[in-house]
């Protein structure tokens, strides 16, 4: 295979990854790593570098629209970014001491978890009374809807912050946005309404990924020949996805995608145990 064909196939793959990632809310990085390692037999370290770049591209691309609409809770994102960036730096340090097959196994587990999270029921419910800390930190807010702005309050700020640290650490170690864990922290622990938590999580992915990307760039994980088709493909895919999202029903798509992701995850875990990385 020449570099030319490699680039074209990767461009197409990255496009589909960006499309699937934006339709299901999983982000671009999740598909990039298995695509590069299982299909192209690229070393997982290059794949992690590419996935980080993909995560920043999709996050920044879609966050720009959500922030302008006022759905994203910028203060909440900013506060939790302390946890995710600190976690990401720890993850990037941990990565030095973690054998690649362990990284592959962890990645597989994270994939299965993400697939399960895509399928769970979403809660739009907004709390009317928040915890003390939520007022002190000015984390409560409101978001626009068809029936005017909806106010919401937050709970369990400490628990959310702790889960975010783990999310950041996994993001730094595996090169993914770990959006699924971020949503878990905000939805399940802090009781943020679903629309706010997904957009705020997406908003945070860029900064979290950048915190470890600056380390990985210096370590030589980011290869230009892989990076450019990934950036272009994922951005174009995410753009198509955001246009399609309004028109199609994604429920069946999410189910198919989750099953596919789980199979890929099992493959990664199996290969990890057999030291095929």
């Amino acid at each position, binding site marked *: *295979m*020449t*570099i*030319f064909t*490699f*680039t074209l196939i990767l461009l197409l793959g990255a496009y589909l990854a960006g499309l699937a990632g934006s339709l299901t809310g999983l982000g671009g990085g999740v598909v990039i790593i298995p695509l*590069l390692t299982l299909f192209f*037999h*690229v*070393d997982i*370290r*290059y794949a992690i570098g590419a996935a980080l*770049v993909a995560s*920043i*591209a999709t996050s*920044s*691309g879609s*966050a*720009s629209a959500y*922030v*302008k609409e006022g759905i994203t809770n*910028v*203060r909440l994102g*900013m506060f939790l*970014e*302390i946890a995710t*960036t*600190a976690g*990401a*730096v720890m993850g*990037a*340090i941990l990565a*030095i001491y973690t054998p690649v097959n362990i990284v592959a196994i962890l990645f597989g587990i994270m994939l299965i978890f993400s697939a399960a999270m895509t399928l769970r029921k979403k809660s739009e419910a907004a709390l009317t009374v928040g915890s003390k800390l939520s007022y002190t*930190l*000015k984390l409560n807010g409101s978001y626009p809807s068809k029936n005017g702005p909806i106010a919401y309050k937050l709970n369990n700020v400490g628990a959310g912050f702790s889960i975010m640290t783990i999310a950041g650490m996994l993001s730094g170690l595996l090169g993914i946005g770990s959006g699924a864990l971020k949503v878990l922290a905000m939805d399940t622990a802090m009781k943020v309404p679903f629309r706010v938590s997904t957009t705020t999580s997406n908003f945070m992915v*860029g*900064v979290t*990924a*950048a*915190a*470890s*990307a*600056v*380390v990985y*760039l*210096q*370590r*030589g*994980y*980011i*290869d*230009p*020949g*892989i*990076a*450019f*088709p990934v*950036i*272009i493909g994922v*951005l174009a895919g995410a753009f198509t996805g955001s246009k399609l999202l309004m028109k199609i029903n994604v429920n069946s798509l999410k189910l198919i995608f989750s099953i596919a992701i789980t199979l890929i995850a099992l493959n990664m875990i199996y290969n990890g145990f057999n030291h095929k990385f």
Partner: protein
Amino acid sequence: MITKENKKMTDYDMEQLIGQVLRYGVLISGSIAIIGGIWYLYQQGSGTPHYTTFNGEPAGYTSLTGILKGLAQGSASEIIQLGVLILIATPIIRIFFSLVSFIIEKDRLYIVITSIVLFIILFSMFAGLKV
């Protein structure tokens, strides 16, 4: 009442500003990646990819000075890496703009919080964690 209204305005302004920063960052880095990519394929398209083993990238791709040196020589790989750099810089610049907005809003708590995030990222950048 008036102060509250003012505060809302700046929050809204900050959201618009952050949105623009993210959008232009992505557009610029994407365009540079396309230009560099086409040039790269023209130069090396007939070669064979070598990604199955990890060698780490040469210094030219991993540091700002290396990338700038390559740019001066018109090297395609360094043009792409410049696009990557701008992409990575985009969320960091976003934090910087948020900090400025919080300073204008005189929101002390969030000036501190935003500074911590910025500090962590700068630490990550310059602490020599590349080992």
